[in-house]
């Protein structure tokens, strides 16, 4: 039995811990803010990996497209606030093959420039989104998988 447990530990190490040491995030993020009448956007796959040459579609609340553009090699794209806009703006990033993300700019942000404090808060929110998954989350996820396995084991034993 102890030999089997040892083997299981070796397996968990091979399958889980080695990949974990290469951990990088993979999500799609678009972040936008307004400064002096210009909307600036930054898009990435998290962890400083920029979403290059991806289409950005800007829509009003009703889904009417008011602007379209493409990110540069740094994942950035900026444009003037479209004229005659009287609704929140929804910025949709299409990073291809089913990858998509969006960011909403409230109507009132389009008319008044946000204070530096607001920009700072939004930036912190974005940095939090871009963070790599912590090792704690990885271990927590694996813990949940094994707890579910135990639950299935328990149920199977009860049924039989």
């Amino acid at each position, binding site marked *: 039995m102890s030999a089997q447990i040892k083997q299981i530990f070796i397996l968990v190490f091979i399958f*889980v811990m080695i990949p974990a040491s290469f951990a990088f995030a993979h999500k799609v993020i678009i972040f936008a803010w307004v400064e002096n009448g210009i909307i600036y956007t930054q898009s990435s796959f998290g962890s400083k990996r920029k979403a290059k040459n991806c289409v950005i579609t800007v829509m009003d609340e009703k889904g009417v497209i008011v602007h379209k553009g493409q990110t540069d090699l740094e994942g950035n794209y900026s444009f003037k606030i479209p004229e005659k806009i009287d609704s929140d703006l929804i910025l949709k990033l299409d990073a291809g093959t*089913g990858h998509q993300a969006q960011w909403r700019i409230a109507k009132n942000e389009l008319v008044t420039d946000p204070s530096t404090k607001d920009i700072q808060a939004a930036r912190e929110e974005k940095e939090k989104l871009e963070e790599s998954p912590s090792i704690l989350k990885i271990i927590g996820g694996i813990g949940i*998988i094994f707890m579910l396995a135990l639950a299935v084991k328990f149920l199977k034993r009860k049924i039989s």
Partner: protein
Amino acid sequence: MHISEGVLSGPVLASGAVLAMAGTAIGLKKIDYDQIVHVAILASAFFVASLIHVNVGPASVHLILNGIVGLLLGFAAIPAILTALLLQSVFFQYGGLTALGINVVVMAAPAVLVHYLFLPLLGKSPTLTFVAGFLSGILSILCSSLLLGLALWFTNKNFFETSLVIITAHIPVMIIEGIITGFCVSFLLKVYPEIIPLKSYGEKK
């Protein structure tokens, strides 16, 4: 490979969810009591594999490992992949929660396929074992790419172009996963053959 929130239409998402539920039910029923720990180990492997990335063009592709999970688990791969994808979605924001069902179909269906195609080859000879693993790795990603293309087809209406982009982007992953799966099954057959559900192997023992 993970489809984000808001990409697909309602009917496609619903069909995916129904198929995933049916598959999970079959999978749970088919898991042997002694196999449950293996399901958990492989689900964990799948859960972390997506954190390893290769940047290709505008998209970013990552290891998937559905080949080895399916090869070793068969139908039991479906609940394993469902659990792992759910946790990836909640913890790492990979793929949308509403797209969970369709993501399960895209990654688990090829996994089950390679089990039935290549499992009989395992243990026949060291070369055949490696080749079976290698082909499992390649074919599972290829089929997943095609299924992803098919799922996106309903919104894009451009199946061949979309699929070609996805498959091209996943060629490096296919090769890497083929090699990883080949080496893993060869290694496992030597050090921990119990994880390979081979009837013939059990008889030999």
